[in-house]
């Protein structure tokens, strides 16, 4: 079982407001899931490198050539919160 505060802390970091019943449910669910994950501790991975991708892909870059940016209207197209030519957002503190 997980500590109650852990779920609350994770929810806060993730910017999610959980109700009390949700918190309790997640404690149970996530506790169970994490418990089952512990099985991987048994695997010997001492000399094993992590696989960040299914197979190694390396040295992919692009040339420094300009391509057209979006026109203003397309950039703002999906922003419900806008003011003139700016995106609108909440106070940053």
């Amino acid at each position, binding site marked *: 079982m997980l500590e109650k505060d*852990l*779920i609350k802390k*994770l*929810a806060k*970091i*993730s*910017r*999610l*407001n*959980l109700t009390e019943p*949700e918190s309790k449910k*997640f404690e149970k*669910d*996530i506790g*169970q*899931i*994490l418990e*089952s*994950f512990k*099985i*991987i*501790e048994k*695997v010997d*991975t001492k000399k*094993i*490198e*992590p*696989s*960040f*991708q*299914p*197979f190694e*892909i390396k040295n*992919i870059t*692009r040339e420094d050539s300009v391509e057209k940016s*979006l026109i203003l209207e*397309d950039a703002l*197209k*999906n*922003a*419900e*919160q806008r003011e003139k030519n700016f*995106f*609108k*957002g*909440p*106070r*940053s*503190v």
Partner: protein
Amino acid sequence: MNTKKVLEEAKELDKKYNIFITINENFDGKFPLAVKDNICTKDILTTAGSKILHNYYPVFDATAIEKLKKRGAGIIGKTVMDEFGFGTFSTNCAYKIPKNPHDPKRCCGGSSGGSAAYIAASKYAEFAIGQSTGGSITCPAAFCGVVGLTPTYGLVSRYGLIDYANSLDKIGVLAKSVEKASSCLQMIIGHDSKDSTSVKKKQGIQKKKITIGIPKEYFANVDKRIVVQVMKYVKKLEKDGFKVKKISLPHTKYAVPAYYIIALSEASTNLAKFCGLRYGLSYSSEEKGFNEYFSEVRTAGFGEEAKRRIILGTYVRMAGYRDQYYLKALKVRTLIIRDFKEAFKKVDVLIAPSMPMIAPKFSEIEKLTSLQQYTSDILTVAPNLAGIPQLSIPCGFVDKMPIGMQILGDYFREDDIIAVGKQVEKYG
């Protein structure tokens, strides 16, 4: 193609089976294409199955869609899915839950449930676009009795696919036949400079004599009737000259935890962008601090499963836990990949059941815990972690419900699995 009839049918099927989030009234083209709703279609609503994108009209097409449009695809609609791909049964849907055309009391499988159901039920559509992270093409293909083709990671550009887990996501095909799946795949593969993980690899020449491996771990904990059905077809293949060998993939039992840890680590960062700015669900942002505002939007916009996965994903990459979960899982992934590498030294393809059960009833799914839902993915997560190509093909019925067998190949060996798949199709 009669666009009017196709459109009518789409609306009918949608009423019956809850297939579409959006039906494109302006649909026109050489052939109808249903697209899973996490793939960007220019100027057509793209929600990724979530309320948080209830109003997102992409200003660009996914590369795969661009290619299909060039070949004459007309987008008939955007199909229903588990929110962001988070689900095994297409029951974590913010809009509507698709019903299995074989039995509407049962689920379609997930997360590409809508696309699979459309192919199963439509007279006109021959293939549809889906996406797989942990098995989201194979599962609904098996449950709906259609063909599901998940290509090698990197073969199809991910540009324009709304990310679930970037090192695991692949765009793929649901189709009425192996041939149709293969044709569609040919249209969408190719290196894309906009996707740094897209590969230039040329597919190899198909082998003349293909050996089949049967991984024993993939037959344990599976409905016995499914095992029997799959083995019937394997026997037929053996009779027709395919060599069959027993194989072991010893790290299979670690696949579900490794998969979920890696996938959710990536997913929880991918979903951070949804916060009521620039696009998607939003509220008035005046007189609010950013934490308050972001929390308000995300709480309202994400469903329960998305929240659970974000929290889990945040945990396993947090300082203090990162080593024992995130980094450990990545090492286990290496071992799982090695299992397949070793197997493909001995055989050309692997055959196993696609799913351990037939499509469950909605009433059964309600009783499952989250953990039980996650472990239902046991047969599909390992091939997805490895990024190898997978073909799911119908192989009979159990309890009047279709079941599927999956044919797995080595990297870029789509030709091998397609060849075996075509043979299996001949058996009916």
